[in-house]
C-alpha cells in the first residue's frame, strides 16, 4: 500500500496539532483544577491576532506571532486577575461557567468586529515538500518540529526548573504547598497565562494550514477535551499520548473505514478507555483536600 507513508505523515501532523492544543488544557486543569472552556477561543485569537497584525501593521509572520503572544498573555493576565482569581476560591462550577461565558464573549466580539468571512495568514512556509511519495507542506513540517520542541522543553521545565517544581507541588497538594510558603495565587496566575500562551502558539502555528474564522476554536476545543480526558485530566504525558493516539486513530479510521466514521471511532475508543481506566490513561487520583 503506497499511501501508508502519506497516512503516517498525516497522522503525525494531526496528532501533534492536537497535542499542542491539549497541553494548555491539561496544564490549567492540573494546577487550577478548572477546565478552561475558552481555550479554543485563545487558539482562535492567536490565529486572528497574527492575521490582523499582518494586515494592519504589515508585520511578517514571526513578528506578528511574537506580538500576538505578548498581547494575548496580557489579556489572559487581566482576565485571570479580575475574574478567575476571586472565582477560584469559590465553587469550581463558578470558574467553569466563567470560562464558558468568556468563550462566548470572545468569539462574538471577534465576529462583530471582523465579520465571519474566512481569512488567510500569510506565512513564509507556503511550499510543499516531497519526501519519496509523501507530500507535506512546509507549514506542517514547522508544526511537527516546533511541536516536538515545545513538548521536550515543557517536560524539562516541569521536571527540572524551580517554577516547574512549584507547579507540581501545587498540583499534587495545594494546601501543603501553601503551608510550605508557596504563593498559590502566583502559580495559578502563571499557569493560566502559560496555558493560554500555548493555545495562542498553536493558533499561530496551525492557522496558516487552514483558514482563520471566529468559530475555528470551537471544534478544536472538542478534540482538546477528548484528548485530555483520554490521557488523564491534568497529566502532561497523557495529553501527549492522547493527542498522538487520536491523530493516528482518526487517520486510520478515515482511510480504512471512511472519513465520516473517524469521529465515531475516536469517541468509541474514548468510552472504552474510560470503562477500563476511568481516570484516563495517565490519570491519577487526586488526593482529597
Amino acid at each position, binding site marked *: 500500500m503506497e*499511501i501508508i507513508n*502519506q497516512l503516517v505523515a498525516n497522522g503525525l501532523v494531526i496528532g501533534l496539532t492536537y497535542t499542542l492544543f491539549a497541553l494548555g488544557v491539561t496544564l490549567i486543569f492540573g494546577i487550577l483544577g478548572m477546565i478552561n472552556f475558552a481555550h479554543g477561543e485563545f487558539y482562535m485569537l492567536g490565529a486572528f491576532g497574527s492575521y490582523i497584525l499582518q494586515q494592519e501593521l504589515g508585520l511578517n509572520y514571526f513578528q506578528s506571532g511574537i506580538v500576538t503572544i505578548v498581547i494575548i498573555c496580557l489579556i489572559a493576565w487581566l482576565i485571570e486577575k479580575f475574574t478567575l482569581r476571586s472565582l477560584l476560591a469559590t465553587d469550581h462550577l463558578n470558574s467553569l461557567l466563567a470560562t464558558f461565558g468568556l468563550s462566548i464573549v470572545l468569539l462574538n466580539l471577534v465576529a462583530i468586529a471582523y465579520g*465571519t468571512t*474566512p481569512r488567510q495568514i500569510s506565512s513564509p512556509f507556503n511550499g*510543499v515538500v*516531497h519526501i519519496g511519495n509523501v507530500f507535506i507542506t512546509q507549514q506542517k513540517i514547522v508544526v511537527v518540529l516546533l511541536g516536538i520542541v515545545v513538548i521536550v522543553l515543557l517536560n524539562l521545565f516541569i521536571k527540572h526548573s524551580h517554577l516547574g517544581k512549584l507547579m507540581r507541588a501545587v498540583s499534587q497538594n495545594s494546601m501543603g504547598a501553601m503551608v510550605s510558603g508557596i504563593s498559590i495565587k502566583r502559580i495559578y496566575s502563571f499557569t493560566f497565562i502559560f496555558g493560554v500562551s500555548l493555545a495562542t502558539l498553536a493558533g499561530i502555528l496551525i492557522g496558516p494550514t487552514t483558514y482563520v*474564522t471566529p468559530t475555528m476554536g470551537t471544534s478544536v476545543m472538542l478534540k482538546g477535551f477528548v484528548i485530555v480526558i483520554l490521557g488523564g485530566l491534568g497529566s502532561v504525558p497523557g495529553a501527549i499520548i492522547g493527542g498522538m493516539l487520536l491523530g493516528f486513530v482518526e*487517520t486510520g479510521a478515515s482511510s480504512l473505514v471512511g472519513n465520516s466514521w*473517524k469521529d465515531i471511532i475516536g469517541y468509541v475508543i474514548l468510552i472504552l478507555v474510560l470503562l477500563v481506566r476511568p481516570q484516563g490513561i495517565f490519570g491519577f487520583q487526586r488526593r482529597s483536600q
Partner: protein
Amino acid sequence: MRKRILTTLMLVLVLILGACAQSSNGTGKNESGNIKIGAVLPLTGPAALYGQQTLDGAKLAAKMINDDGGILKGRKITLLTEDDQSKPELGVTKFKKLIESDKVDAITGGVNSSVNMATKDVAKNKLLNVVTVSKAPEIMSDRDSFRFRLNSTNDMDGKAFHKFMAEQLKPKTVAVIAENTDYGQAELKALKKNWSGNDNPKIVATEFFDLAETDFTNPLTKLKSANADALYVVGAAIEINSAIFKQAHQLGFNNTMKLLAPGNINSKMVELAGEGAEGIISADLYQNTIDNEMNKEFVAAFEKEYNRKPEKMEMLGFESIWFVAKAMDKAGSSTDYKAISKALESEDWKSPRGDLKFEDGQALGEVIPLTVKGGKVIPYQQ
C-alpha cells in the same frame, strides 16, 4: 395607584383609537403615488453576507428604474427592507408587518429556504411574492399564481451540470468528496442517478466530511489512491471548498480534473484557494463577464455604485426588483396581481444572465459552465 391604572387605561385607549384612525384613514394600496416593494433578507446572522449582496443588487434596480423616470407613468419605486436574521419565525413577522402595516405592493427576498417555507403562506393569494435566492424545490409547491422564484433549484443545476460533465468533459472515473449534509447526500444521489448509464463516468470512490472539519488531507489521501480522472467536490461553504482544493493541490492532485458542484463557485473561494483553484470547472446561473447588452449595463452601473463587480446574489437581487417593476409596467397596474403574474409568465425577459422565461413561477435559468483561469472565474470554453 388609582391614578396609575387610570393613566394606563387612557394610554391603551389612545393607542386603540390611534390604530383605528390609522386603519380607517390608511389609504391601503392604490394606483397612485410611489410603488412600495418589500425585501425581507438576512442582514445580520449567519447568511448576512448573502443578504447584503442581494440587497445591493435590489437597491441598484430601484435606483436605475427611478432614474429612468419610474414606471406606470412616472411612479417611483420605494424599497422597504426588513432583516429576517435567517430565522423563519422572524421572517413571518416581517412579512406580516410589510403586508399589513406598510401595505407593500409586492414582496421579495429570501435567502434561506427555511424562511421562505414559513413565509410563503403569509403572502399566499394576497400579493406578488418573488422568492429571490432560496433553492428548496418545496417552496414552489402548493403555489398560488402570485409566487415566483428567480434562483434555480439544486435539481435543475445538477441535471444540467452532470450531463455537461459526462458529455463534454468525459472523465472515465470520478472520485467524490461531499459534505455530510442533506445537500451533499442529495447531490451525490442525483449524480448517481444521472450517471446510471454504462457510457457515463464511473464513481470509483466517495468520502464524506463534516462541516466542522478543516483538515481534509486524510480523505483526500484516500481519494488520491483511487487514481480517478476527476475529483468532484460537493460543498457549499466557501472556506471548506477552498481548503479542499488547496489541500488537494498540496497533496499532488495535479493531473486530476477538478470539478465543483454547480452554484458554489465564487471569487472569494478562488482567492482563498490560490493555485489550488486553477482549472476548477463548475457552473452557475450567472457570471459577470457574460456577453450581452443588459449585463454590460448592469455590471457598469453596479461597479459605479459599489466599486466592485456583481456576482450571482447581486444579480438575483437586481432581478427581483427589476422584473416586478417591469411586469407591473407591462400589466398597467401595481395591484392587479393576476395581470402582473400573467405578464411575468408570458414574456421572454431580458436579464443580465441572458434571456429568461418563467414556468409555473419558476425562472428557467440554465447554469453556464465556468472555469478558473489566472485566479479569475470565466466562462468555460473547450
